[in-house]
């Protein structure tokens, strides 16, 4: 059932590509660059965030006023604030598209699990940085989000009260609260770059930037949105006030909408459960080698006696699964007799695609279940088959 659903989603995802390619050339399909687009918007967030940071004052009295000053009195301040606001949404859209596309197109299992896991952790940190951004304005919405978060954290068994105190920096909201929120906003955002290293470490030439046309389109879209729909604050936070509602940013604040129907603790539990499920997705529904068919031909194997240490496979492997090590002994073939290096396949990274086999001119790499010799036989049979079958 679930498997059939995934197969259907895969088919639908690729069907969508067919539609997009009626309009755009293949390699301009924005869905091929969701990761690059996310990185573009993250860069915009960092740059605009630094500019906003220069004006921001993390204190109970000054926070709201400093944001208002930025919005009203600083030249183009309202545009920067708007760009920061909408780039955050665009970023979340891009990473969700990235997540679902890679999920539905089967790019998360086996050796690719490290990228999936780092992606889930990136999602957690992005969500954290996103929602704490709404706390910093310190308007009625921030106040309400803070109180809902405190309620949710308090209902965590055993460590709840401690977590709530860590969150606001004391038993209640005080002067330590906003500096702490500022850290909770900027800290996770910085951590994203460490996590991106984890996300990229197994990839050779990761596509970290979309084509120029999409960069310009993305930036233009942000400028237009920021100018047409400027980001604004609600009424300033008042101690003791209990605001009724707030405008919701659906990409970051949806768990707080749930709090309308369930206790905040349950909303938190739901988010945690969703993320925990996300973490185990690569390990659910394991496919047998028969089901994976041509994608399970076994990890590439280096034929020691033929390897010349030429590094061609090392440069072509898209997953950084081949390392060149100093050759412990000369190879047997004439070309390999004087080698200095030897290719070694890192099994945990190899996705069994065979790109290294195509790269190797020395017959020094093989996929165990599709040997060079057998392919050559099939080619010769195909090239020479008698014309009897023709009609």
């Amino acid at each position: 059932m679930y498997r059939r659903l995934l197969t259907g989603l895969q088919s639908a995802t690729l069907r969508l590509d067919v539609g997009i390619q009626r309009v755009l050339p293949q390699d301009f399909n924005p869905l091929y660059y969701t990761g690059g687009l996310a990185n573009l918007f993250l860069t915009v967030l960092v740059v605009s965030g630094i500019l906003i940071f220069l004006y921001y004052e993390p204190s109970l009295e000054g926070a709201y006023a400093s944001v208002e000053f930025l919005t009203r009195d600083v030249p183009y301040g309202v545009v920067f604030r708007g760009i920061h606001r909408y780039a955050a949404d665009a970023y979340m859209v891009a990473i969700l598209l990235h997540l679902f596309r890679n999920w539905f197109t089967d790019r998360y299992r086996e050796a690719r699990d490290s990228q999936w896991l780092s992606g889930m952790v990136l999602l957690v940190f992005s969500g954290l940085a996103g929602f704490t951004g709404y706390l910093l304005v310190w308007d009625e919405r921030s106040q309400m989000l803070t109180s809902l978060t405190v309620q949710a954290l308090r209902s965590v068994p055993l460590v709840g009260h401690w977590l709530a105190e860590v969150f606001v920096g004391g038993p209640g909201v005080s002067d330590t609260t906003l500096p702490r929120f500022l850290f909770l906003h900027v800290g996770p955002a910085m951590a994203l770059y460490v996590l991106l290293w984890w996300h990229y470490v197994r990839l050779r030439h990761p596509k970290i930037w979309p084509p120029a046309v999409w960069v310009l389109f993305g930036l233009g879209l942000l400028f237009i949105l920021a100018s047409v729909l400027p980001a604004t604050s609600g009424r300033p936070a008042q101690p003791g006030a209990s605001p009724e509602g707030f405008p919701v940013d659906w990409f970051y604040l949806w768990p707080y909408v749930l709090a309308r129907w369930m206790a905040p603790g349950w909303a938190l539990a739901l988010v945690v459960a969703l993320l925990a499920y996300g973490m185990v997705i690569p390990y659910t529904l394991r496919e047998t080698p028969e089901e994976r068919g041509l994608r399970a031909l076994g990890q590439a194997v280096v034929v020691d006696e033929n390897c010349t240490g030429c590094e061609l496979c090392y440069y072509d492997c898209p997953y950084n699964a081949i390392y060149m090590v100093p050759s412990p002994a000369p190879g047997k073939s004439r070309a390999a007799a004087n080698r200095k290096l030897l290719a070694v396949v890192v099994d945990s990274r190899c996705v069994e695609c065979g790109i290294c086999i195509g790269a190797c001119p020395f017959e020094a790499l093989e996929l165990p279940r599709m040997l060079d010799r057998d392919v050559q036989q099939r080619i010769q049979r195909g090239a020479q088959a008698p014309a009897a079958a023709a009609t």
Partner: protein
Amino acid sequence: MATKTETAQGTPVRVVGFLCDWAVRSEGLLNPDDTLVGMPHVTVIRVPCSGFVKPGWLELALRSGAAGTFVCGCPMGDCLNREGNWIMEDRIDQLRKRLARQKVDPDRIAFFAYGLHDQQAFLDAVQAFVDRLRALGGGKA
């Protein structure tokens, strides 16, 4: 359709192709002997990724008597293994230049990029390729 794969002299145009597992859906596309439905002179070898194909194999196909050979990868940018089809396109460019120096017509090698749902477009492209080969004449054998 099968008769179309013959040259003017009546010699069948033999083609060996490689089809990436992530590209065109192969169900209903291949006969049990790995030839293409409706084109019994076109043998298709399914591979895990277009980047798996050694340029030497394409050369071998031509030297073994095939009039032409092609590789079909998935849409550029959509490679399941990130960049197999870009790498393969590049290798085929290099192979074409090398073959041109050896007086082998580079048009005998083709590279296609079609996704899961593009079966008909793929078949049309192969047919067009076979027609071009027919104009060029049969293979070496």
